[in-house]
């Protein structure tokens, strides 16, 4: 069964100015945010899982977008967090271009693989169009950022 993406698009789940410029630190920051939202447990362990996912392959999807994602025992319900970095993040040696939008997609461990990948795919599909990416990078307030994405979700 598909996970509805609409409820995930709350302004509390957007971070318009990620503090860090390295992938490891950004994943730690977003893991802490997930805990603050009551969805992710034990941020250090969650970051370790996300780093294991990066070992499997970089989650940089091109065009300045990264979609770190995992199913985890530490996650109690599906969650999408959107982080923006105007300065850019050095994601991995294999991805020379900086990442400006980070879409963290988390699912509980019991989620089937196909359901989790559907959520990743639908999240990426929303931000792939160049005009959307541009808008997301330009908006000033987090409410606008959330509003733009909400308009795009049926």
């Amino acid at each position, binding site marked *: 069964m598909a996970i509805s993406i609409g409820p995930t698009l709350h302004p509390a789940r957007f971070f318009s100015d990620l503090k860090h410029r390295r992938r490891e630190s950004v994943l730690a920051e977003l893991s802490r945010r997930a805990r603050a939202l009551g969805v992710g447990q034990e941020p250090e*362990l969650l970051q370790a899982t996300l780093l*294991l996912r990066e*070992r*499997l*392959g970089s989650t940089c999807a*091109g065009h300045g977008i990264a979609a770190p994602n995992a199913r985890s*025992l530490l996650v109690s319900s599906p969650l999408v967090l959107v982080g923006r970095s105007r300065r850019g993040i050095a994601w991995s040696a294999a991805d020379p271009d900086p990442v400006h939008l980070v879409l963290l997609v988390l699912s509980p461990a019991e989620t089937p*693989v*196909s359901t989790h990948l559907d959520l*990743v795919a639908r999240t990426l599909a929303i931000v792939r169009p160049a005009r959307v990416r541009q808008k997301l990078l330009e908006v000033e307030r987090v409410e606008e950022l959330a509003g733009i994405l909400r308009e795009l979700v049926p």
Partner: protein
Amino acid sequence: MSARSALVALHDADLLLEEAHAPDGRRRCRALGLDLPGLGALERARRQLHQQLEPHWMRAYERARRRYGRAVVAVRDRVCQGCYMALPTSASPGAEALTVCESCGRILVWH
């Protein structure tokens, strides 16, 4: 890393491996621009995590994994999320302790 942390990391590593080995997991990831070239690196990381476990936890993990697919489950509201049996009040360890569900044998992680 504590035994509990190693078990949680091992469990999540196995979920990632399941994704990489799923019939269309690799194809779908590639279609999203997320290739999976690091299968060997992840398998090495898994072996390292496995070696951190004490032998009895290693055996309990592999036994439950063979039987159920997932060997470790969370406890929510005192209910094992593997078999959904309510756990007795005596089964309430500290955050770092590990226990096994007396009903199904899965390893329990209490948050």
